[in-house]
């Protein structure tokens, strides 16, 4: 019953000092809205980095043979049966896991030679039909075309590689690599198309060829070094990886990796950027905390007589402090809700199609193996928003503690002398 009285007093206190409450709330609302906006933008940026990198790399989830991640060698490959089991597991779980698509890849390090030069390259045997929906290479086409179903001795090469080997669409060149038997084998292929991604390591060192041609050339019938899986959004990666690992079991001799494991550089880049965001958020939280502390403390100091009367009426010091504490909490909670809604509305209303930073950067930039799109589309993660609200409530509580303590310690006789 007394708790209800204290609640009522606190609610009235917030309502009565409308201007003060509004100003305090405005600081918190703005802070939280800014927090949600920056978080959504940051997560959106990360999502783009990850998407770009995993599409051109080994997917959000990679199914590989043990040892392949460490060595990159053909001897650590999935055989035809393992590929079949992996594909079956993916297909069976796809609807419930949010799997977008999957693609098998047979990758090997080798040499690309033409009359002009010979350069080390990464050769990836791909399923042209699946790869078109998986990677974004088709959109990076500079000349010619991407690989198609039915292609045999065709290759899709990076623009820098083509320049250095003096290759044009239709030219032939030789790929050389160590086959499954350990022998070094050569394969003559013809340039079907040339791509440019802005990621230099891809543009100067990646060759796509039909997986069946690669299997036949390298003596690895039905094999793949990776079965790459795309999920949406990337935050589902760990869940999908765990489910697939569970379905495949340990006796199949395969390993399921999330992108953080298979692309440690990208993982580090995202983490470093996250830390930068956290520092910004800590500063923002500190500003919000000071705003609350300032407003609630001024309110307490300005209402000493009121608190003195409460004490005279029979409230204890603790209860008087509780009134102030609840006031701070109410203010924080209300501001939290409004800030969250405003943050969503602002971000979604103005930037749902993306915030264009092309004026601030080159049209093509790369970072940790991923192409950076100058248009960042905000990405809302419920968990992140809840964490922000949780932190706002925590700092609201902490910032209200000191004024509450001051109110509880007020000497009622002294407080009664205060002219309101």
């Amino acid at each position, binding site marked *: 019953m007394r708790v209800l009285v204290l609640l009522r007093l606190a609610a009235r206190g917030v309502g009565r000092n409308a201007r003060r409450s509004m100003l305090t709330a405005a600081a918190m609302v703005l802070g939280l809205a800014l927090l949600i906006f920056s978080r959504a933008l940051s997560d959106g940026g990360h999502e783009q980095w990850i998407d770009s990198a995993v599409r051109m790399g080994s997917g959000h989830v990679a199914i590989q043979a043990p040892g392949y991640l460490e060595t990159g060698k053909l001897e650590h490959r999935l055989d035809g049966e393992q590929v079949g089991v992996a594909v079956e597991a993916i297909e069976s779980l796809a609807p419930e896991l949010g799997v977008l698509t999957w693609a098998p890849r047979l990758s090997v390090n080798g040499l690309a030679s033409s009359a002009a030069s010979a350069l080390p390259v990464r050769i990836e045997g791909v399923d042209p039909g699946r790869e078109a929906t998986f990677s974004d290479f088709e959109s990076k086409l500079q000349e010619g075309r991407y690989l198609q179903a039915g292609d045999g001795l065709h290759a899709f090469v990076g623009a820098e590689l083509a320049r250095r080997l003096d290759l044009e669409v239709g030219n032939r060149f030789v790929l050389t690599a160590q086959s499954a038997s350990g022998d070094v084998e050569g394969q003559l292929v013809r340039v079907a198309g040339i791509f440019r991604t802005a990621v230099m390591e891809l543009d100067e060192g990646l060759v796509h060829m039909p997986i069946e041609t690669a299997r036949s050339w390298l003596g690895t019938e039905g094999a793949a070094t990776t079965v790459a899986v795309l999920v949406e959004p990337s935050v589902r990666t760990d869940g999908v990886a765990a489910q697939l690992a569970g379905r495949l079991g340990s006796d199949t001799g395969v390993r399921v990796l999330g992108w953080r494991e298979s692309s440690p550089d990208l993982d580090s880049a995202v983490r470093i950027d996250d830390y930068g965001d956290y520092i910004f958020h800590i500063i923002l939280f500190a500003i919000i905390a000071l705003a609350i502390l300032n407003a609630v403390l001024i309110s307490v100091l300005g209402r000493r007589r009121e608190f003195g009367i409460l004490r005279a*009426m029979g409230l204890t010091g603790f209860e008087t402090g509780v009134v102030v504490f609840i006031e701070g909490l109410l203010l924080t909670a209300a501001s939290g809700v409004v800030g969250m809604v405003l943050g969503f509305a602002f971000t979604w209303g103005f930037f749902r199609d993306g915030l264009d930073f092309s004026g601030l950067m080159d049209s093509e930039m790369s970072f940790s193996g991923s192409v950076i799109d100058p248009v960042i589309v905000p990405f809302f993660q419920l968990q992140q928003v809840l964490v922000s609200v949780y932190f706002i409530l925590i700092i609201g509580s902490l910032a209200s503690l000191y004024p509450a303590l001051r109110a509880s310690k007020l000497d*009622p006789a002294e407080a009664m002398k205060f002219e309101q």
Partner: protein
Amino acid sequence: MSDLAVRTEDVWKIYPQEPEPVQAVRGLTLEIERGDFVAMAGPSGSGKTTVLNLLGGLTDATRGRIWIGGEELTGMSERERAKLRLERIGFVFQAYNLLPVLTALENAEFTLLLRGLPKEERHARVHGLFREIGLEGLADRRPGRLSGGQQQRVAVARAVVADPALVLADEPTANLDSVTSDALLDTMERLNREHGTTFVFSTHDPRVMERARRLIMLVDGQIEADERRAPVRGGAATA
């Protein structure tokens, strides 16, 4: 149960102040009977308000003992004193008496609410009292929309609504004009007469002193004179 509403025994209140401690109350020994109507007068700084704060448990005595209705106040914990104030003491202050966030009705019923009385009973008591002291129709007004006299009457209603043994009134008429002061005093006198509530005032106001049945003069924190007088009635209860 004791017939004394208040008893003090060699009460001192010393404020530790530089360069010298201030002795606001010096060896106060006092007995006030139940149902009395007592005024404590004296010049500014004589310790009137401090004595009321001591009697109300709003401040601690440096030494000495205080009993309210037979219950010893000195030595009580803060929680026990809060309970004592809630159950046995009503306060009327000089000004800004009311909680600005509550309506007149909510202010007046506040102590009843803290005591956990049901809404119907609270409202019945407050409305009855409001009728008695001429506050009908003002129950829903916030303090800011009441005159000074109306605010003080609401404060009086709040102080007496829970039938306390003792009402401590610190210069209740100081900010009121003479007509309003008389009306307020009429109200308190009538409540004293009809409900037997003990009133102790601190005051400079001759009107209060005239009506008191007992006048205690304080000078420099000590009782200089303690005069029992014939009660002076201020006329009919005010509306």
